[in-house]
């Protein structure tokens, strides 16, 4: 059910996640537990196929003791939260000036062509998605992309091919360890 809609009753936060949420809440003074929201949403998104459905957001609101609208407001403001299902491997290319001068546009076109999709589309097998995002802070290592928590820098077409192969073979780590 990689890309299926999450039903409200299916929303279960694992014990590990709940422990992590409690830990994050402990970083903030009493009465200010809402502060943990942004970090918590990252952790929750990682556990829920990289996107946040309404039931999931409602559950986050419940856990943090805030109103659902406060979660929706935050989720829609920040660009790293997905409100729709995404591919398993999302190549987020930085396309701002420095990367653009070093040829990221060619690389994006190449990747789209290779995967047979347009920008922001998910491949039919649900594996890949190509996105253009704004500056990721790796201007000196351009062109680059973000995949999960990690950056892949100084990209070339050959490196891109290898990365796609590695993803298919399940050899690419997406999450940094807690």
């Amino acid at each position, binding site marked *: 059910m990689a890309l299926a809609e999450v039903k409200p009753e299916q929303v279960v936060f694992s014990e590990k996640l709940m422990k992590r949420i409690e830990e994050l809440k402990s970083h903030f003074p009493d009465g200010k537990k809402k502060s943990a929201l942004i970090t918590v949403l990252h952790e929750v998104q990682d556990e829920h196929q990289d996107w946040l459905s309404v039931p999931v957001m409602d559950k986050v609101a419940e856990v943090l003791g805030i*109103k659902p*609208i406060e979660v*929706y407001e935050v989720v*829609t*403001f920040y*660009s790293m939260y997905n409100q729709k299902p995404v591919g398993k491997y999302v190549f987020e290319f930085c396309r701002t000036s420095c990367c653009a001068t070093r040829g990221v546009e060619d690389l994006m076109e190449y990747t789209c062509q290779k995967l047979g999709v347009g920008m922001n589309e998910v491949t039919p097998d649900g594996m890949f998605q190509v996105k253009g995002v704004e500056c990721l802070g790796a201007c000196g290592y351009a062109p680059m992309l973000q995949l999960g928590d990690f950056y892949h820098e100084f990209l070339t077409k050959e490196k891109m091919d290898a990365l796609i192969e590695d993803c298919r073979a399940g050899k690419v780590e997406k999450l940094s360890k807690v």
Partner: protein
Amino acid sequence: MPKVTIDGVSIEVEAGTTILNAARQIGGDLVPPAMCYYSKLKGSGGKCRVCLVEISKGSEANPNPMPKLQASCCTPIADGMEVKNMTSQKVQDMRKGVVEFLLINHPLDCPICDQAGECDLQNLGFDYGAQTTRYQEGRRTFDRIDIGDKIQLHMNRCILCYRCTYVADQLTPHRDHGVLNRGDASEISTYISHAIDNDFSGNMIDVCPVGALTDKTFRFKSRVWFLKPYRAHRQCSHEKCNGQVDVWMFGNEIYRVTARKDDYHEVESFICNECRFDHKNNADWTIEGPRKLEKWSVINQGKYMKRTAEVNIDTEKALLLGRNEDRKRLSMVAPEEAKKK
């Protein structure tokens, strides 16, 4: 008390007063317009930027002018401050710019908008807008969402003043709507279609400076300038509502009920939804008399309340004072008695 001079007019106000409120105490044409500031909503203001003014002298202690224009609604005055609003070319120029920004994505659907005639953006466009637009691209549109059977949300018209979110935060038990997304995609929404349903939600309609939130029970019923507003009241059982409203009538029929508004289009006291939506019957209200409107308001065009120069006719008073016999003979009725009748 600190003294501030706005467009050459000086006034002493309490420390901590904002420039806008000081200007309102003076009154008249020098008051900067405000689209997002609302004196009765804490935290509002600073967003629309139409109230920008030039501070040509910071204060007595530091007479340097401020390099940037300041939002008058959230800049506190300092003793000896000199402010230029209507007298500053720069301010007028920038205000035109801001109004242009507000209008580029506005649908300009005034002919079918219920707010037309009492819309702050219309007024602003009248004062500062250009005849033509320099914006060639398509205007921004949003998907419609339904927020219940009482309030109509037209996101395309919204200028994002955030007032309605403050109403929900400060007057109602909980807020179900908010500002979603970011940048020029920002919208007022409940995210999932969801009725905003609480006793005071109707006040969002009154605080909305444009036609983004309108009264569904009044939708397309009449143009506001065909109606006559009257001050009216009723005994309201809601603890936070004093039942003092304006009823908007056509003939003897009440078309809509709104809160009473002051010179700056701010409500005098917030009213409950029951008063607003559920009492359209004449018998429910005690009518106090017609409401005053600004002379230039389009709603005055009904001409029913045109104020003429006051002429004192003292004949009766002067000639017949104390002469009841004569009065009877002339079949004239004393003014006091006429009132009683």
